């Protein structure tokens, strides 16, 4: 090889190295954007771990930088979509997942994640749509997106959970069964993301709390869920389990805002449980404290009626454990000048009644009565209060007097509610309840007014024939007619052939009248006369022969079953002849 050849070879090698160098420079410069984008993305991921509002703002900025460097970075688009959900911004969610869908489509990759995200965006938008038809349409679109995402990757629980949440928005009870099916599919996959796991338990809790209201739906939901608890179909059990699932979701939620939101739903479920479930005292107090805390701190996530219900429930539960100050405090919070839900009024009234009944000393009882009377009178005197509220106030006041043992005041209060302007607005069931309560008060205490109570019970039955308690009172007061001591005796100025037939007829508070008594001697009706103390007398119209004669007595009265009794009398003339001699 000559020197010239050697020089040419070296020159070629140098050119080759230069070309490679330029190529590598361009490659490097091109990947600078990739590197910067990934660095910003990783910074955003790090901020996500903190979960605070401040960190979410930093995350937003980092993601912005990442997408500026590389607009089609799929991971960053997914994270931006997640951020939009956290910040409750459906526009950001929609933009991010639509862009992701386009990117995945161009690369020929599955679009399940994008469909899932777009479905979430639609769900978030539903809150802003007022028209029912439009809402239904959007809901259906979202549901189809979730179902499509689930079909693409059946073993991924996330779209199943979202489809279930979608179904929970439908008003029909049958949608709950479909939601249960989706949740069962999600559970079968055992492949949740952390956020989907939180949503799963929240959705399951919401589903169970709603389903427990209808026995048939509860059974169907329990069948679809294939839960380890084989008695989940029992509605009370289902409600308790629903609250447990919501509590679980709140316990594992990572961000404070989500925990707070889940706890608001949990409080509503717990408010239903504490009223009837026989819970240990510690559990009752914990639940009640959560309910009251949520009602106090959370003014935006509840409707006014829901807040009133929570406060009144807290008052009711505290009345059972003797916390007097708490009862008064929550009762005040449960009442609103703009109008109070009737259910809440009833609960607060019951709270005061409980407090009076459970008070340990006479001083405590009178204190509770004082607070309760003040509450009820305030309610009655509320300016612009409707008839239903005034009536409820009077009922509550009467209940309190009754519990305290002041039957006179209780009766006066109830009778004041029996005014034409009030009674006319009440339903037949409520009218019956009012009269029935009046009857109960009239029968209480030392001075019983049985006749008055009978009249009140009759009014209650007239208002509502199905009122079982009024029926019972009436039967007790009216009593069963009994015909006793049928006998024949001889009158002073009458011969033995004209014996005086007598019988004692009893039947409750109201005496049987002579018009309602029929006496037959040997099948012939005779005139009946009433005596004192329920005695009735009859004399045969024609003389009777010596021997045995049949007497039949029939008695009837209002609100009582007619009674019949038969007997035989023996007529003997020997005694008369002996007496005459």
């Amino acid at each position: 090889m000559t020197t010239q050849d050697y020089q040419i070879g070296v020159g070629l090698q140098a050119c080759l190295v230069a070309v490679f160098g330029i190529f590598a420079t361009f490659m490097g410069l091109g990947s600078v954007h990739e590197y910067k984008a990934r660095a910003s993305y990783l910074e955003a991921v790090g901020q996500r771990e903190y979960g605070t509002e401040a960190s979410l703002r930093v995350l937003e900025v980092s993601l912005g930088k990442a997408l500026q460097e590389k607009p089609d970075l799929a991971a960053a688009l997914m994270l931006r979509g997640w951020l939009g959900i956290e910040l409750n911004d459906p526009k950001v969610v929609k933009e991010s997942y639509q862009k992701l869908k386009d990117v995945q489509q161009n690369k020929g990759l599955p679009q399940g994640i994008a469909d899932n995200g777009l479905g979430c965006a639609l769900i978030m938008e539903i809150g802003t749509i007022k028209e029912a038809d439009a809402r239904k349409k959007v809901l259906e679109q979202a549901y189809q997106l979730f179902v499509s995402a689930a079909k693409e990757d059946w073993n991924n629980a996330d779209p199943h959970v979202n489809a279930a949440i979608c179904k929970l928005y439908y008003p029909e009870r049958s949608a709950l069964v479909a939601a249960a099916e989706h949740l069962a599919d999600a559970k079968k996959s055992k492949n949740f993301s952390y956020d989907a796991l939180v949503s799963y338990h929240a959705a399951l809790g919401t589903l169970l709390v709603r389903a427990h209201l209808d026995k048939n739906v509860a059974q169907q939901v329990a069948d679809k869920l294939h839960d380890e608890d084989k008695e989940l179909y029992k509605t009370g059990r289902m409600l308790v389990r629903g609250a447990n699932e919501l509590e679980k979701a709140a316990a594992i939620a990572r961000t404070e805002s989500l925990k707070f939101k889940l706890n608001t739903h949990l409080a509503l479920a717990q408010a239903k449980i504490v009223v009837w479930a026989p819970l240990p005292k510690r559990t009752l107090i914990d639940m009640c404290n959560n309910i009251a805390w949520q009602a106090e701190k959370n003014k935006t996530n509840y409707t006014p009626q829901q807040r009133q219900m929570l406060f009144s429930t807290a008052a009711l539960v505290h009345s059972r454990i003797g916390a007097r100050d708490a009862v008064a405090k929550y009762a005040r919070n449960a009442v609103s000048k703009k109008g109070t839900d009737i259910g809440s009024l009833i609960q607060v009234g019951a709270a005061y009644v409980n407090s009076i009944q459970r008070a340990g000393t006479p001083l405590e009882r009178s204190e509770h009565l004082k607070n309760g009377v003040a509450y009820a009178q305030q309610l009655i005197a509320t300016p612009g209060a409707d008839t239903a509220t005034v009536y409820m106030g009077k009922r509550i006041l009467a209940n309190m007097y009754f519990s305290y043992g002041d039957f006179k005041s209780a009766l006066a209060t109830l009778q004041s509610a029996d005014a034409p302007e009030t009674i006319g607005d009440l339903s037949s069931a409520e009218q019956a309840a009012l009269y029935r309560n009046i009857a109960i008060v009239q029968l209480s205490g030392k001075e019983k007014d049985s006749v008055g109570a009978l009249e009140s019970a009759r009014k209650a039955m007239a208002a509502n024939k199905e009122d079982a308690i009024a029926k019972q009172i009436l039967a007790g007061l009216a009593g069963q007619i009994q015909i006793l001591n049928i006998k024949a005796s001889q009158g002073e100025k009458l011969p033995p052939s004209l014996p005086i037939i007598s019988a004692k007829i009893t039947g409750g508070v109201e005496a049987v009248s002579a018009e309602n008594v029929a006496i037959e001697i040997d099948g012939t009706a005779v005139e009946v006369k009433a005596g004192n103390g329920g005695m009735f007398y009859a004399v045969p119209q024609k003389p009777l022969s010596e021997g045995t004669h049949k007497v039949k007595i029939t008695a009837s009265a209002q609100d009582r079953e007619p009674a019949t009794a038969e007997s035989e009398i023996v007529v003997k003339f020997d005694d008369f002849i002996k007496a005459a001699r």
Partner: protein
Amino acid sequence: MEKIKSLIWYATIMLLMIGLYYVGRTYSIGMIEDFRLMEPVIKPNSMILIKKGTSVIRNLKRDDIIVYWRTLDGKTSMRIAGRIAALPGQIITVNLKEKRVYVDGVSIANAPAGIEVLETGIIIPRDTAFVMFDSPPQIEQRVGPHAYFVRFSDIEGRVTR
């Protein structure tokens, strides 16, 4: 001969550097925060050898002791050691009567306070491990169930001794 000796030296140094690099990437030495959560296996403020790497995290098994980072109040990060109790797809339940934790129906440990709400069961999500501690947390350290879930991305590595 001299040239060969130099080459051998250079090769040895290169191999040493590659070896150190590999060891540095795979292992690290760390100190656990002053919690007595893993006593007596790991004492607080003690130095431990941690094996790192994606393959280590992907191959974690139950009872492996891991080291992970936990952020408190969004500011301070702390290094904590814990024992893997359950991995993605497994179901954790708590028996309140026995006060025991079950994984896929098998009793594994006493239940610490604060996870009673998991009585009806919970599936471990993907890329997450459920971690428990050999010594139960003290009252002031008690946390809710979410603290027992550790993301794989937070795991520094597995403790080797």
